[in-house]
């Protein structure tokens, strides 16, 4: 009974979201639509990192690397041949890539698959490490990807990056992928396979004793996370229409990590909430970087002030609410209905 109610409410929520997006497309300006798009992409990225870090306990800082792989692969597949010829000034694009073309959906999928393959490749040596060492190793991986992208001019166009990427990533694609990611990861972590991942996070020794092939499960989780990071990167490339290696610095991983930690490690609803709040705040807080005049006192604009505020906010979260907004809890329909009912009973009394 609960299950069918949950299903109906989920369908209703998706319909509501669809209606909102349809309304937004007709009534909001381009800047606000852009923010809505970024919300969707950031949620995809944060959900994938939460799967790796929050649910499996693998402290990974390699998200920017997977995003870069996804972004480059899918961009090269959707760039028209003429455009490719035009932007590759240093070296012409190597042969199969110069003529290869794919529809947007396939390109994004390919970006995700490529990222997942790299995830699989590095996970075998890297996942033998634990804790902080894993963080350093994956950070190194992301850096390697960036440096390679900077120097492999025949494929990535080096530091010039790719320009004029077709802007296919509209609000429907982004939210479509976002919902798919949420659905897939939610199903995964709520299944017994998800229980196994959480077991590895909670107590690896006990998980081994329970017959769980810990390394294999970690590799699966890491690769699935990498897949969605690649998808997020691919969508972002198409949304921004231009990418270059400088975009994929550690700061990009940091932004995603901030959403995951603020939302709660091991909470999908927390990630969604934090994804919305932080993405919106990141834009809204731009005013603090503008020059301010208070009376006769003039403060020049300080670029980067937003990040100072965010870093401080993160510091406060770690100090006073380490488990994030939601901790490991989830908002469920049954929970909401339960709260409403209790409130209703209280009002009646």
């Amino acid at each position, binding site marked *: 009974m609960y299950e069918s109610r949950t299903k109906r409410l989920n369908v209703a929520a998706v319909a509501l979201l669809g209606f909102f997006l349809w309304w937004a497309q007709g009534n909001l300006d381009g800047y606000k639509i852009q923010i809505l798009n970024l919300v969707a992409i950031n949620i995809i990225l944060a959900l994938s990192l939460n799967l790796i870090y929050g649910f499996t306990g693998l402290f990974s800082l390699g998200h920017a690397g997977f995003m870069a792989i996804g972004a480059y692969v899918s961009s090269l597949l959707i760039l028209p041949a003429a455009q490719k010829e035009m932007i590759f000034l240093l070296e012409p694009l190597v042969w199969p890539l110069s003529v290869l073309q794919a529809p947007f959906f396939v390109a994004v999928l390919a970006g995700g698959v490529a990222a997942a393959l790299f995830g699989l490749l590095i996970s075998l040596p890297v996942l033998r490490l634990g804790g902080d060492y894993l963080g350093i190793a994956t950070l190194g991986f992301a850096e390697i990807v960036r440096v390679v992208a900077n120097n492999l001019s025949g494929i990535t166009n080096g530091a010039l990056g790719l320009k004029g990427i077709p802007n296919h990533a509209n609000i429907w694609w982004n939210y479509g992928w976002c919902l798919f990611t949420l*659905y*897939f990861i939610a*199903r*995964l972590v709520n*299944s*017994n*396979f*998800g*229980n*196994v991942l*959480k*077991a590895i*996070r*909670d*107590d690896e*020794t*006990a*998980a*081994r*004793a*329970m*017959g*769980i*092939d*810990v390394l294999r499960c970690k590799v*699966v989780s890491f690769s*699935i996370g990498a897949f969605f990071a690649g998808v997020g990167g691919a969508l972002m490339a198409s949304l921004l229409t231009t990418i270059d290696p400088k975009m994929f610095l550690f700061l990009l991983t940091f932004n995603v990590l901030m959403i995951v930690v603020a939302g709660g490690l*091991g909470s999908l609803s927390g990630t969604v909430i934090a994804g919305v709040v932080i993405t919106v705040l990141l834009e809204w807080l731009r005013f603090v970087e503008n020059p301010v005049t208070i009376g006769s006192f003039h403060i020049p604009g300080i670029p980067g002030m937003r990040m100072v505020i965010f870093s401080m906010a993160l510091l406060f979260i770690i100090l006073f609410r380490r488990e994030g907004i939601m901790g*490991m809890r989830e908002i469920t329909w049954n929970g909401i209905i339960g709260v409403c009912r209790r409130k209703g009973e209280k009002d009646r009394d």
Partner: protein
Amino acid sequence: MTERETALETQGVTMRFGGLTALHDFSIRVHRGSIVGLIGPNGAGKTTCFNVMTGFYRPTEGKVLFEGRDLTAKGPHEVCREGIARTFQNIRLFSNETVLQNVMIGCHVRTPLNWWETPLPFGVGAKKEKEIREKAYHLLEEVELAHLADECAASLPYGAQRRLEIARALATEPRFLLLDEPAAGMNPQESQKLMAFIRHIRERFNLTVMFIEHDMKVVMGVCEYIWVLDYGVLIAEGAPKEIQADPRVIEAYLGEEAVADA
């Protein structure tokens, strides 16, 4: 003792950590279907012995055989797949998960749910999920924890956590169960109940049980055969009566109190 009756056998197992020999030339044979004990003073190498048997340590020398198959080179999860399950001295539950989820995790080794089976709410994955949930629930009923199925594992009282850990081990469908100090921290009534419980699950699940225990009442009450370790060396073995009378054991372990009793 014929080959068929032996469940687990160790042959000259030696475990060295650098210069320290934690276990020296340890050879035992455990009868199938028996309840046996491993005792010894603190630091005698009992837990090391368990860690060797369950694949957490690879012995420096010697072999571990389970039902005739060599386990020496196998990792913990492979040993579990072979049919040996264990509990830990300091309870190691998955503390953020519910009681039911803890047991479900134990079911994974026999009914593995693959990641690609999870997205669809119907089909093979959903069927397996249901099967696992039901099996886990039945096991909880068996250990009288079913009413706590949705509680967080960490919130359980101590005795219930011990039982849950055993239920989780049973979920892996073992034929051989290793219990590391199951009665630690229990009062006499609780350990009395535990003994009955161990006998019950042995019958119910057709197990061979080996455990480490400090509580002599439990050891002498439930074990059919006992091995005594001291400083990594096997100093005595036999039925409880013989062990109680063995002067070396009394000297090494049971102490003056036992001498006075005898």
